[in-house]
């Protein structure tokens, strides 16, 4: 009981500190998605556009992780590990995505699933709080399990999902809808991910 009370006080203390500053973190993006259309994925009716069909990537074509950075402890010295920071500093993170240099007629959509990925660390004193200020350390897709169209414009990066607390190994699946006018050449495009932390 005393232990829980101490954890609660630590969390509340960190939360109040957090209002002054959200700790810095690092986004890791892994995977080089390869979108290869098969014959079965192409339009079958002459005259219709090829974007009426579409095709999907693997469910984990890209995997992203976001954890807080280790910090040094002033005066005392030493380092607070990433795991410790993530355990004691709980924020809400929103993930926005956009692409660049994709040709007209090419639509890239993305999605993940509810609570995909892994909490980091797996358990935290925050999980045992009677009242969790930001809710449970879950991941919530913006539009359920539906795909979201990724804009080809960094000025309009779109929210795809959000999560509470640090999280690793979040899989992202893509769906491609390409007009017949999109050139049949092997092309590469950048997909950008922006994580924004917040206190609420």
């Amino acid at each position, binding site marked *: 009981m005393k232990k829980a009370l101490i954890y609660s006080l630590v969390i509340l203390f960190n939360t109040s500190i957090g209002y002054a500053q959200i700790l810095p973190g690092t*986004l890791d993006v892994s995977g080089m998605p390869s979108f290869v259309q098969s014959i079965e994925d192409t339009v079958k009716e002459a005259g*219709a556009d090829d974007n009426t069909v579409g095709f999907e990537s693997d469910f984990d074509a890209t995997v992203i992780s976001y954890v807080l950075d280790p910090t040094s402890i002033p005066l005392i010295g030493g380092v607070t590990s990433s795991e410790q920071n993530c355990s004691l500093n709980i924020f809400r993170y929103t993930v926005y995505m956009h692409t660049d240099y994709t040709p007209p007629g090419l639509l890239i959509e993305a999605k993940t699933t509810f609570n995909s990925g892994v909490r980091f660390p797996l358990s935290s004193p925050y999980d045992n709080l009677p009242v969790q200020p930001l809710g449970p350390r879950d991941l919530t897709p913006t539009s359920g399990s539906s795909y979201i169209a990724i804009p080809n414009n960094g000025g309009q990066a779109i929210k795809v999902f959000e999560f509470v607390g640090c999280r690793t190994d979040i899989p992202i699946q893509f769906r491609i809808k390409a007009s017949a006018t999109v050139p049949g050449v092997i092309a590469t495009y950048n997909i950008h991910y922006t994580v924004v932390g917040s206190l609420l």
Partner: protein
Amino acid sequence: MKNKQFIIVALSIVQVFFCNAQETINANDPNSFIFGGDSDFNTATLELQEILLTDLEPDPGNTISFGVNPSDMEAGKPVTGAGGTSVNEDIWLNFTYRGINYRNARILVYANQPLPADLEIKIQVIATANTGGNYNPNPNYNPIVASTSEQVLVYDFASGYTGDGEGTGYQLRYTIDNPNGASLPTGFEIIYEIR
């Protein structure tokens, strides 16, 4: 009172609008949103298939019959001049095309077997239309006499699609000249090939 209600309703509508709007940020300007967080990117590779599709609409039902109504026949007059159907303008040609490495395509027409002597079929593009398509028509408007030799019906065009169905793409005119009333061989077809 009415003004107050109107304002409340208007505010509700505005709020509903904002709730339904998808949330976006200007990721090009981190100073506009970053309190804490990070950004990164990866590179995706895209490889699309070549598409070469063409069909004749209405489909099914694009078989053309040129017949003669016996009651219209008159001794001394040619059979096709006796009122039998000799022209058909009901068929529309559609295509969907994606070229590899920006290669253009053409549409060729030919018969799958020789026509009987004294029987001539002409094929001609008489109009183009675009309903829901995205393409550059570039047709050959000259009448083409059907034969087993390939002939160009549509000159070079880039990737695109005509829209699907009748009333879009290329309207074709079939004209038959059959003074001796010959029949086409069984299984006779006129073939359109996009290449």
